[in-house]
C-alpha cells in the first residue's frame, strides 16, 4: 500500500468516528511512511485527551479495515510528552488536518507567483 493512500483512508476513518476522535491526534510512523513495498502493517499512534478516549478508540477502530493490519498505539498527551513519543518515532501527523493539502498547494503557488511579480 502506498503511504498517500493509507493517509487518505485513515483520515476518512478518523472523520467517520465523529465525537469519539474529537481532540485526538493521529500519527503515522514506521515502514509505511517510507513507502516500503514490503510493509507488513500500518503503525498508527493516536494521542488522546484521556484514558477513556483511548479505551473508546481502541474499541472503535477495526485493525483489519485497511489492506494491511493496523498496529495501534494509544497514549495520552501526558504520556506522549513524558517519553517524547512523536519526536523519537519520527511520526508524521495525519489528523486532524489543519489545512487541506490542496489549500497548502494553492497557498504556496500564490506566494511563488507574488514573489515573481
Amino acid at each position, binding site marked *: 500500500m502506498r503511504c498517500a493512500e493509507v493517509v487518505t483512508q485513515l483520515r476518512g476513518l478518523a472523520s467517520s468516528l465523529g465525537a469519539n476522535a474529537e481532540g485526538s491526534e493521529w500519527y503515522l510512523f514506521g515502514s509505511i511512511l517510507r513507502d516500503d513495498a514490503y510493509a507488513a502493517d500500518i503503525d498508527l499512534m493516536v494521542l488522546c485527551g484521556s484514558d477513556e478516549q483511548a479505551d473508546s478508540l481502541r474499541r472503535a477502530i477495526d485493525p*483489519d479495515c485497511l489492506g494491511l493490519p493496523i498496529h495501534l498505539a494509544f497514549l495520552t498527551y501526558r504520556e506522549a510528552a513524558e517519553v517524547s513519543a512523536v519526536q523519537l518515532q519520527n511520526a508524521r501527523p495525519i489528523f486532524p488536518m489543519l489545512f487541506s493539502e490542496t489549500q497548502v498547494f494553492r497557498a504556496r503557488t500564490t506566494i511563488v507567483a507574488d514573489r515573481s511579480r
Partner: protein
Amino acid sequence: LSNSVRDWVADKLTTDQALEVVSRTPEDFLVVKQPSGYSFMVAVLGIKNVVEHAHVAPLFTGSNQPELVINVPSKALWSGPAIDHIHAASAAFGTLGDVSRAARTGDAGSYRNKNMSFFINAIRQHSNVTGVSYIYERVLGVQRRSGPSLNVVVVDAYNMSAEDVRNAKDRYGHFDIVLKGSSYGAITYHAEQAAALVGAEALTFKDLIRRLGK
C-alpha cells in the same frame, strides 16, 4: 468458513502486498507466489475469538499441508495448544500482514515472530527457569525452580502506555508481568501504575531477567 474470507485475503495479498495467488488446493489453501518465484500454501481461518487446537488440527491431516496458517480477524487470540500443533507440523501462524513476512524468508513454515522467539530463548536459558510455553500468541507461561510460575504478556510497543496494559488485561485476562517488546523507547509512569492496579509489573527485558531470579 465461507469463501468470502479467503477471497478477501486473496484480494488483499494481490493488491496490497505484491504477492500473487496462483491457485487453490482441493483443501481450499491459497497457493501464494512471491515475485522471486517462491510459492507456498496458506490456510485461512475465520475464527472470531480464540483459535483453538480443534480449529488447526484438521488442516494437517490431508495430502497437502499448509506452510502458514492465518486468521482473520487479526485481533483473535491463538491458544497455546493451537500454536504448538502448528509448530510441530513445521508450519507458521499469523495474520494477513505475516504472509509477506513469511514469503520473504523463502521457507514460510520456518517463519516465527522474531521478538517472541528471542524472548522464549532468553527466558529458557535463565538458570531459575525450567520451562517456557505459549499460553496465547503473546503470553508465555514461565515455570521456575524457585518461586511460582509467572504469566508474561509481551506488548509489541515502542513506548508502553497505560492503554497497552489495560488492553492486555482485556485480551488475555490474568498476568503477572507485562513486558515491553521493543528494546527502544520507554514505559510510561501511568503504564507502571496501570500494571500495579491489576496486580502486575510493567518491565523491560533487562528487568524481567532480574525478576525471574526472585
